[in-house]
């Protein structure tokens, strides 16, 4: 197990280098000068412009800038935001819980609905439920997220008035951050109705964010189950007289979980990308919205640092997925 872990760690390092370089290059490829953007409509004298350029180090050659950035990263210093003057690291961790909370809710919805749906569709293949589910999944998968989000907002927030349009918490409530997770903090605050408000705010964005992973998980579960259900050991399990629930839900699903775990792991990447759009639409104060705002402000340190952190998160999730393989199917651990 340790050897397995170390070999995965070995692939981690080159990926990390590549991601550092790409996050550095990405924002610099975009047209626009951060200092001009910072100055806004007031404009800037030539001397002041030059002074700011050398203050931020933009007069240095690119490789020197990268080296500065890279050595900083290795020391845990992602730089300081041009706009707020706070360390990128601090900003990231003050906003990350909001994104994490949204993503966790979304992935829970996606797994809780997608997995059983895929299993049932496979068991009743070709029947009505299977067909209905698979066409719905196809629609969910190909639907533009912003359109779907707006539709939900119009129906549930506009027409029905069931859910708020934006933010994480009603204005009536105020309490300190403890964990950064609204669901937990609102409970800890003891204020009546705060938790309900947090849930209300969370529902629509979670559904929107869950849509694509849900469709992907349902489809993958179905196809993995179909493959496993024709295996000899399923026939053996049935020959023992086990109930269909146990045969499908334990013997088959356990084996089908390998490809499903893979797409769940990949969904986490999609989820963070989807979070950028979803957070923007719902004014959700997480890292997605933070990244979008920073790109418009040409806030170089935030964009490169934020991208790097997101990439590290995704790599971390994939590492966990790799370790899970071995736990689910001991045969894989042997390789």
């Amino acid at each position: 197990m340790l050897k397995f872990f170390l070999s995965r760690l070995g692939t981690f390092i080159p990926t990390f280098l590549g991601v550092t370089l790409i996050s550095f290059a990405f924002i610099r490829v975009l047209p626009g000068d951060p200092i001009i953007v910072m100055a806004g409509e007031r404009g800037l004298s030539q001397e002041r412009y030059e002074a700011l350029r050398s203050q931020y180090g933009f007069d240095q050659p690119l490789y020197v800038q990268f080296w500065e950035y890279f050595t900083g990263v290795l020391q845990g210093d992602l730089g300081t935001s041009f706009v707020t003057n706070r360390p990128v690291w601090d900003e990231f961790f003050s906003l990350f819980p909001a994104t994490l909370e949204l993503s966790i809710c979304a992935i829970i919805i996606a797994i809780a609905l997608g997995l059983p749906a895929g299993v049932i569709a496979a068991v009743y293949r070709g029947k009505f439920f299977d067909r209905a589910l698979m066409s719905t999944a196809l629609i969910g998968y190909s639907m533009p997220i912003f359109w779907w989000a707006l539709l939900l907002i119009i129906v549930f927030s506009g027409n029905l008035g069931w859910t708020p349009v934006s933010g994480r918490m009603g204005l009536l409530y105020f309490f300190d951050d403890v964990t950064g997770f609204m669901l937990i903090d609102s409970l800890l605050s003891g204020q009546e109705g705060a938790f309900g408000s947090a849930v209300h705010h969370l529902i629509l964005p979670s559904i929107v964010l869950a849509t694509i992973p849900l469709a992907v998980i349902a489809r993958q579960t179905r196809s993995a189950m179909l493959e496993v259900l024709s295996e000899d050991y399923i026939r053996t399990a049935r020959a023992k007289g086990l109930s269909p629930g146990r045969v499908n839900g334990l013997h088959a699903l356990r084996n089908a979980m390998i490809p499903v775990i893979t797409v769940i792991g990949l969904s986490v990447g999609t989820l963070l990308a989807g979070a950028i759009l979803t957070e923007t639409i719902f004014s959700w104060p997480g890292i997605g919205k933070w990244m979008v705002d920073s790109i418009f402000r040409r806030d170089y340190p935030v964009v490169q640092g934020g991208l790097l952190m997101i990439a590290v998160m995704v790599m971390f999730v994939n590492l966990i997925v790799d370790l899970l393989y071995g736990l689910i199917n001991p045969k894989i651990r042997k390789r």
Partner: protein
Amino acid sequence: MSLLKIRNLSVTFTTSSGPFRAVDKVDVDVRPGEILAIVGESGSGKSVSMLATMGLLPWTATVTADEMSFDGRDLRAMSGKARRRLIGNDLAMIFQEPMSSLNPCFTVGFQIREALRKHTSLDAKARHARCIELFEMVGIPAPERRLKAFPHQLSGGMNQRVMIAMAIACRPRLLIADEPTTALDVTIQAQILDLLTGLQAETGMGLILITHDMGVVAETAERVAVQYAGQKVEDQPVDALFDTPHHPYTAALLAALPERATERHLPTIPGVVPGQHDRPAGCLFSPRCKFADDTCRTIEPPVQPPELGLALCHYPLHAPQEAKA
């Protein structure tokens, strides 16, 4: 009274190229404690007929029978739940591929205990003790340790022993072994066969041994049913069958045995078992039969009386002169 009694069993698969009859009007009888061998080339419907008995065929299969009873209970009228109480318990089956027949995600011990939990009232400790006992019965050394092994950590022969232990865990009255040795090394094959016949003698259970190996039949079976292209073509006690085969197909199978060969090269049966699209009219064996005439090629053969091995043939071999006329 028969332990297993099947009359007129037919199985038809719905395939993308139309219906396919894999088992055609087959009768099966097994008395308690009897060893019945079912022989025939691959594709002759041996597995499918036994899977139909177990109720393990996929939904694409349609099973019909005039009678299908186990221990006097009608299998056709049984609910799914009642059937699941029976299989794995009184009626058990093992399969050809031991390596793929066990679930790779669970230890072999788990997979045996699962059967015990389903069908017996033993508690956890008693189940464990029974597993140890079973492993000793099937000759698996170091049972405590092996119970914790995953199937991929054991050899094919060991896995087949595990499968046998699992099948006899709840003391079945009938064990169906579907080519249990085909996937194994020759040296292991004999061990597994000895094990099966030993267990049969020890427990007094009935045993259906499916095989395509006449040599295996000679060593183990009491009675033999020969199956060809989904039909039972002959049914005789083993000695009588080897002495006086009545169906030309049986005779050809026997002639192909190495110890019976008179020439330097083994005689083989030309051609293959007809599949879905090349089923001949009349007798299904007629295209490969050296005795076939126009009657065989056009008219379906009758079932001969028991003295002639229930042979499905117009011109059974070794028939007394007057019967031929």
